[in-house]
């Protein structure tokens, strides 16, 4: 089962269907309002406080709900759906523990500016504040990690609130919005009127930039001898990949895309330098450090990108384009701030942009460096290397799969060895670094992209944080291809303990984890194990060819480290290059 928009009715059809004014329950209003927002798939888990909502789903044609096995799986799936489609992801959970199980997922989406509408039930309004059964103040708990939140007090408010929530979630700097619906409100009957307007005095994101600021940037580019474009997730989220390409080509400025910006610029392009930061390319990091003009387009100068702030891009004039004014100047003092939507800014900028003609030597130097020091690892025929596995996955999927990852070493190897050429193909928890995200987010990505190959690359640690969702892949035949890079250890922690904590390996041994092949088979999912290159390729090709979900466990070398590496507290030009150097 995958979301099939062909069977869904258009908004106009739905408005016509529900045009006559009708008194219906809050629950039914919720479902109708979600469909009017174009929601084609909701991920959720029922419970006491949302029973009216689930009752309204019973027999409700057109409403597509996917029952996960844990609320955390539901919200990560909604997140993967949102990141890969650009549409708002929606999930539903009950009050108390159902709601608190969403907290990690909400924080994940908030950190990476992912549009979600999160619906929770709550105890009846008469019981709120009494420590009732399964009561939790989820609005209060999630206030620091939501873009906005609502506690609905009257059913008649629901159409307005849902419409506002979708607008807030998916405009400006995107993010999760929580709607908490007490049980009595979901049962209350009121007149249903579809809501189509948004009136929010306190919310008016600046989309079009100040032209003078854009002109300042263009003049700075003409003067620059060592310019760099730092392109972040904002470029993906505003759908600006074409504008990024046009701007980079017209100005001839080398591009580095952050972890969340991967896919916003074609990896194979001669101007592309790979991603910067802690495990980024030598070329990108050196370029940033030596640049005289750093144009940040929709990135937020995260500490994993900047390394030690004092000493970051020390000679660069900084241009920062961001839709969120609070990001500008937050971490790095900015010379030319440009508030606006990346796409709108670049559309304006491309028109007046000139080739950075003073940067010829710089471009030549960067091309030379790219050739001299690409990502590298020492391959082996005895042991399976995780980098080789990722490259093999890239090759066999022709580089156009949607790839989701968990967090840790495998995430970095995936970023390094699976180059992307299109946006919304890379789903990873960058800001919060949420283990357990990789596999369920792939389910959501597959629901939103039924015709694409979706690959989930995981470690043996993170896979065990949400493996229960194998059940919904099997039951609904969601054909996600799961790769588990099993090194029997919490690899990134091991790497830090080796390099920074003097080989004091503390609580990282995952030996004794379940047999992942048996685990998958227990859920009815096809599974393979590979311990060498031949097995790996055969197993993976079989998994890809299989008409349904499949898991491949790759038993990889335990002691492998991710390089390059900038240790914490260093500037990003101080890179450990690993044993190949």
């Amino acid at each position, binding site marked *: 089962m995958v979301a099939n928009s062909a069977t869904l009715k258009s908004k106009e059809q739905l408005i016509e269907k529900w045009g006559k004014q009708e008194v219906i329950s809050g629950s039914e209003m919720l479902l109708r309002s979600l469909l009017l927002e174009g929601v084609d798939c909701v991920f959720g888990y029922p419970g006491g406080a949302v029973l009216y909502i689930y009752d309204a789903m019973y027999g409700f044609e057109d409403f597509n709900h996917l029952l996960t096995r844990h609320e955390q799986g539901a919200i990560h799936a909604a997140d993967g759906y949102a990141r890969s489609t650009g549409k708002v992801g929606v999930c539903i959970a009950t009050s108390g523990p159902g709601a608190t199980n969403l907290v990690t997922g909400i924080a994940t989406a908030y950190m990476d500016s992912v549009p979600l509408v999160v619906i929770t039930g709550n105890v009846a309004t008469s019981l709120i504040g009494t420590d009732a059964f399964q009561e939790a103040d989820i*609005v*209060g708990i999630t*206030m*620091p990690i939501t*873009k*906005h*939140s609502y*506690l609905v007090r009257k059913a008649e408010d629901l159409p307005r609130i849902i419409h506002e929530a979708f607008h*807030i979630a998916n405009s400006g*700097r995107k993010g999760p919005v929580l709607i908490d619906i007490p049980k009595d409100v979901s049962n209350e009957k009121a007149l249903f009127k579809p809501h189509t307007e948004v009136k*929010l*005095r*306190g*919310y008016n994101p600046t989309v079009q930039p100040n032209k003078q600021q854009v002109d300042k940037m263009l003049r700075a580019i003409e003067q620059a001898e060592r310019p760099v474009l730092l392109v972040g997730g904002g470029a993906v989220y505003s759908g600006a990949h074409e504008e990024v390409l046009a701007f980079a080509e017209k100005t001839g400025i080398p591009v580095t895309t952050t972890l969340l910006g991967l896919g916003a610029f074609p990896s194979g392009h001669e101007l592309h330098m790979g991603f910067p930061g802690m495990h980024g390319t030598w070329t990108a990091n050196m370029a940033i450090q030596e640049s005289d003009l750093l144009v940040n387009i929709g990135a937020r100068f995260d500490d994993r990108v900047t390394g030690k702030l004092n000493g970051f891009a020390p000679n660069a004039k900084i241009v920062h384009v961001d839709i*969120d*004014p*609070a990001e500008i*100047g*937050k971490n790095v003092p900015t010379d030319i701030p440009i508030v606006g939507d990346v796409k709108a800014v670049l559309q304006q900028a491309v028109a007046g942009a000139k080739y950075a003609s003073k940067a010829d030597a710089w471009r030549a130097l960067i091309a030379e460096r790219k050739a001299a020091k690409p990502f590298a690892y020492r391959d082996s025929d005895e042991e399976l290397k995780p980098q080789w596995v990722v490259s093999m996955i890239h090759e066999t999927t022709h580089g156009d799969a949607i790839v989701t990852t968990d967090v840790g070493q495998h995430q970095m190897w995936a970023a390094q060895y699976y180059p992307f050429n299109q946006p919304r193909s890379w789903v990873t928890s960058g800001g919060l670094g949420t283990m357990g995200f990789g596999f369920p987010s792939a389910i959501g990505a597959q629901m939103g992209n039924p015709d694409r190959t979706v690959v989930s690359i995981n470690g043996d640690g993170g896979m065990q944080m949400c493996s229960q969702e194998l059940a919904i892949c099997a039951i609904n035949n969601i054909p996600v291809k799961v790769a588990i890079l099993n090194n029997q250890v919490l690899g990134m922690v091991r790497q830090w303990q080796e390099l920074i904590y003097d080989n004091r390996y503390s609580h990282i041994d995952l030996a004794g984890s379940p047999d992942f092949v048996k685990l998958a088979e227990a859920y009815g999912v096809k599974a393979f194990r590979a311990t060498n290159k031949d097995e790996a390729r055969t197993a993976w090709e079989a998994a890809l060819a299989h008409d349904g979900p499949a898991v491949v466990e790759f038993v990889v070398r335990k002691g492998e480290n991710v390089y390059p590496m900038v240790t914490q507290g260093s500037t990003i030009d101080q890179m450990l290059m690993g044993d190949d150097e």
Partner: protein
Amino acid sequence: MSTRHTIAILVNDQPGVLQRVSGLFGRRGFNIESITVGSSEEPGLSRMVIVTKGDDHTLEQIEKQLYKIIDVIKVVDIGSSPMVARELGLIKIGADPSARPEILGIVDTFRAAVVDISPNSLIVQVVGDTDKIDAMIELLKPYGIRELSRTGVTAMARGSAR
């Protein structure tokens, strides 16, 4: 350089709005010296006045972060121009009848008022800027302050309406 700033924030009068604003200050490490909330000139909107300490960078971040709260309509750094800032203090003093004339002398000088008298205590009400109330407290300390309650600063820019 860390200085004191007085910020007025116009907000939707919605449940939880105080929590949204104060929570933002807390989690971003912004300091709150005082906070006052009350209705504004427009129905449905409240005005908060927050006194905070920080350098210019912090102040800029505070303003920008506040604007990200959907229920925040407007943020004004009223301390950046001439303003009227007032708070009210209630000070309960354990005062023997013999000490009262002296206390009343201080009260008069500060144009404060005695709003409650009991056999061995009295409550002084003082209105003014923060420095005036600090000074009054200093002068009344020798008589034994039993209880002290301050409203925090509310403030407004001088001159014609913005």
